């Protein structure tokens, strides 16, 4: 049952966000009408739009610095280095993936790239990992335990440095923009642990079952 719900919600990513957005706009207008604050509301609309653009331009400096540094890290082979460190851990998390299977390498690279905040590099590795994991998946079109766990891990965003947040903090004039790095690492470690524990637990509680009408051949 919830698979259908999951599909509906995930497929409707933008429309769900759209619903919340429209709700915010409508509620504000209604509240302003009741409270007699239409003038203030009109002023806020224009000034907020200008503020939003100023905010994003304020990101340019730190983002430029960080993306440059990350390119240097990539060329120095630091992604590969991190990947070597993550390998033993991944073998434990995914015992069903045989030793030396290409899925393992792709997952390791994806997680290493995510840790460095290289979102653009992480996504292709992640998709490759999902494709390779699908080779081991007996039920096409239904996520295997390994695929579900891998996706859950990716939604927990294990990141060593949250670059865009730091850029925002710096442009807002924080005394020490990086003072949230340590706390963020602890919180993200908790989130990742929760992802693994929940995924492992639910995998045991609800094993994949073939659909009643026979297997469809999914995959692109």
């Amino acid at each position: 049952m919830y698979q259908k719900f999951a599909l509906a919600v995930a497929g409707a990513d933008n429309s769900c966000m759209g619903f919340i957005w429209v709700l915010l706009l409508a509620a504000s207008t209604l509240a302003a009408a009741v409270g007699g604050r239409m003038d203030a509301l009109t002023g806020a609309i224009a000034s907020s739009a200008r503020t939003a653009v100023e905010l994003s331009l304020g990101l340019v400096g730190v983002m430029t610095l960080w993306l440059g540094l990350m390119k240097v890290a990539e060329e120095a082979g630091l992604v590969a280095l991190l990947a070597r460190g993550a390998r033993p851990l991944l073998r434990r998390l995914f015992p069903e993936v045989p030793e030396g299977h290409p899925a393992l390498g792709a997952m390791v690279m994806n997680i290493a790239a995510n840790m460095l905040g290289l979102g653009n590099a992480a996504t292709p590795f992640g998709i490759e990992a999902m494709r390779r994991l699908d080779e081991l998946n007996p039920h096409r079109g239904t996520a295997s335990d390994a695929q579900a766990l891998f996706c859950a891990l990716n939604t927990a965003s294990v990141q060593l440095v949250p670059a865009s947040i730091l850029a925002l903090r710096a442009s807002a004039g924080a005394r020490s923009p990086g003072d949230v790095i340590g706390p963020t690492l602890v919180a993200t470690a908790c989130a990742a642990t929760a992802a693994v524990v929940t995924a492992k637990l639910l995998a045991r509680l609800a094993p994949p079952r073939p659909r009643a009408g026979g297997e469809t051949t999914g995959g692109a």
Partner: protein
Amino acid sequence: MFRHALEILSAWALPLLLAGIPIIALARGVKVYPAFLEGAKQGFETAVRVIPALVAIVVALGMLKASGAMDAFARALAPITGAVGIPASVLPMIIVRPLSGGGALGVAADVLRTEGPDSYAGRLVSVMAGSTETTFYVLAVYMGAIGVTRYRHALPAGLIADAVGFAASVLVVRAVFG
């Protein structure tokens, strides 16, 4: 002790990476400067790419405040939000984070601007945004890329990870910044 370790980690992380990565790269024979410029070129584009989402969210939040709806909302939820240590201004983060990365950045930007980056709310919203992901987007991309339509437990596991990340953010920010 824990607090002190985190403070040191926070203070050292950026300068250490900024000095350490180029040193390692140089030792490994990377042409450091051209590589830096190559990557840095994307900085402007990345910042500009978030403009549409930032405008959408910051305008909506600006309207919510100017209309008085935010105050009413905060008053109504004050008993609950106060009890769990999440200020009303940070609540939109919890709703928006799993749905939209740009939107979450917009919420964070708004709180940082209005309450200050060194306030409790400002730090909490930063840690929350940094420790969680756009769960629905990640699932749509990875599952969609290989044609998996039944996600099984991936969605609940991802959402529980987000919830745990938010709860941990509150606890850690309270413990470290008191």
